[in-house]
């Protein structure tokens, strides 16, 4: 954490001291003015400020527990025998990872998955684009007549690829939105983890005891608990049960990955070649070997091996990022609202959804 959790304990006590001074001054003023309403307020707030401190200390303890003591491996061992532990490799989630680390790595894995989908869509798009623009010109009448001039007809046999290009455009759009959503979640998580929100807690102690500010103070506490404890815990929990790669199936992922890296075998060019990298011998591979389109990745091969699994992968990408994120935010906002009511203020975090 950029802002140290340990620093919040003395800061909270300092906030308590400041509030006590304010209450003390108010008490002195009430004695001076002989105002009974003022006196009652001082007595009430004297009790409330300790309640605030208690809530803040418990919250800080819980945040410390979540941040440092809850380990991924301990939870994996709790899974029943029928449920396989998820296996993440981009990057791997270790047994010693804490809630924040594991959540962050889980989101990175989701981002990798969505990126694979984007890369696949882009590769298929590029391959189909090449197919679409390929033209042939047989001579008419008979091949011998060509020596007198370009007589005959020409055509683009695979120009139907344009239809699939539109479909790939759609999946790329979906994947891009999904990818940005995952990146936003990662940024959001690291923003929470940086600890900026922790400063709200000592502030809340002061606010909860000031006239007309109790609701704001309670709201700040509720927001801290919802964002620091509930949100990462939900992501942590999702990481045990929601591995998008496992949901799609290894064969379909492999199909797309091999489509990206090259699937035509010796002498052929992979789909990925057309959009992700351009090797020096592109001319040799595509144009100088043989006369048939089958010499490089076939149109049908692109559609069957890349486009079809990509449709499923795009659906999983969307649900893993956008839908689950919306669900998490709704759960966080519901808990913040309830906590806010308890502490003095109703907070509506659903507005965060609009920002996203």
């Amino acid at each position, binding site marked *: 954490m950029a802002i140290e959790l340990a620093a919040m304990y003395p800061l909270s006590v300092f906030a308590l001291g400041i509030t006590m001074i304010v209450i003390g001054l108010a008490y002195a003023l009430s004695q001076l003015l002989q105002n009974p309403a003022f006196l009652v307020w001082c007595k009430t707030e004297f009790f409330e400020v300790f309640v605030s401190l208690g809530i803040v200390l418990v919250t800080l303890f819980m945040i410390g527990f979540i941040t440092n003591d809850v380990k991924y491996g301990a939870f994996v061992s709790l899974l029943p025998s029928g449920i396989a532990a998820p296996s993440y490799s981009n990057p791997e989630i270790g047994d010693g990872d804490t809630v924040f680390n594991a959540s962050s790595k889980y989101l990175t894995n989701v981002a990798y998955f969505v990126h694979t989908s984007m890369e696949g869509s882009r590769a298929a798009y590029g391959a189909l684009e090449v197919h679409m623009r390929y033209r042939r010109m047989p001579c008419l009448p008979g091949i011998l007549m060509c020596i007198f001039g370009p007589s005959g007809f020409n055509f683009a*046999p695979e120009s139907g690829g344009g239809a699939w290009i539109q*479909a790939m455009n*759609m999946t790329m759009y979906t994947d891009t939105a999904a990818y940005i959503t995952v990146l936003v979640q990662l940024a959001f998580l690291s923003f929470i983890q940086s600890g900026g929100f922790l400063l709200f807690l000592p502030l809340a102690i002061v606010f909860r005891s000031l006239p007309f500010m109790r609701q704001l103070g309670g709201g700040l506490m509720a927001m801290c608990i919802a964002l620091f404890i509930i949100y990462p815990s939900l992501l942590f929990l999702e990481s045990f049960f929601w591995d998008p790669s496992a949901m799609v199936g290894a064969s379909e992922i492999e199909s797309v990955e091999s489509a990206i890296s090259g699937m035509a075998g010796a002498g052929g060019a992979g789909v990925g070649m057309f959009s992700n990298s351009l090797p020096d011998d592109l001319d040799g591979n595509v144009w100088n070997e043989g006369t048939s389109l089958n010499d490089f990745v076939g149109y049908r091969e692109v559609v069957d091996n890349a486009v079809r699994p990509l449709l499923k992968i795009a659906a999983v990408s969307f649900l893993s990022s956008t839908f689950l994120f919306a669900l998490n935010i709704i759960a966080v906002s519901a808990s913040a609202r309830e906590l806010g009511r308890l502490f003095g203020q109703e907070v509506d975090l659903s507005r965060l959804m609009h920002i996203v």
Partner: protein
Amino acid sequence: MMKKFLLALLLVSLSFAAEAEAWQVYSITAVLAAFSVLVIFYMLTYAVDSPQARGMAVSEMFQVLVTLVIIAVFVGAEGYSRDVLAPAFGEDFGAPEGYTHLDFAVNITKSMINYQWGQITKLDGQVVRPLANLATVTGNCGFLGFSFTFNGCAGIAVPSGSMALAMRVLVACILSLSSQLVLLMLANDFFFPVLLPMGLFLRCFHVTRGTGGFLIAVAVAFYFVYPLGVIITKGMLDQAEAGLVAAAGADNYDPVIPSIDAPNADLMSVESLEWIVPGDCDPFDMSYEPTKTMIGKVMNPDLMDRMIFHFFIGGLFTSALNLLIALSSVRELSRIFGTEVDVSALARVS
């Protein structure tokens, strides 16, 4: 009060008596954990001598009891689905033993995706590719540097463009059904085994009752209501389909996809001494006839009407309807289990 606790203990033991599934174990554990927390809280109220807090603890323990009843209802609902509904479906559809309503919904969605993919690839091979190919056929006549170009097939670009657009929409239908499939898998692997116990645990406490109620509502809506919606809308679709089959005849029911002939992709030379261009369009013929013929082929009602029925109604409309039903039930169930939660954000995302 004692009777209520005895009933709770009975429910706990009954839940463990059957061969418990993961979600049941998690749910009971979650409720027991919540109960333990409340017991500790109850004891603390004696330590600080707070009758008000004690009353609150007792009231929350009552909520634990309510939560146990909810678990019992879910166990019953799942058992009913597995032991009564599934065999009834199995009798009608010849499904293997042990199928649940969710398995049916998953298989229905998979079979629809496979059918639609089959139709799309057929349309691609027989119409979209050859049509786009024909639209690009251009004739050249050249001699010693002079040349003429004939674009008699260029008009075919109009139906070809329409078919490309249609393909995009058809793929969107498959994408929509794929999302439905993933949501069903999500309900089976995540919503019910994870969110439900978590929601049950959270609903035992006053502060987190809203969150718990929402999570329970999501789990129930997507595990019970959503798959049932898929099955019911498929039944409605089948009924409507029966009318179409009766009208067209069983053999002619599938979309009639025309076959369009275009120059072969591997064609390098024409072994003929005549000016004949292979395929359904001759670029040297500058009349509108080939374009009109092609428009007639793709605008055929036997193709369009059936495609629209299978893809728009079977793909887009029913999947949107199922999701709408599930999300509407989330709103109502949240009210029952906890508090009202605004699910309009999810609906917009979907």
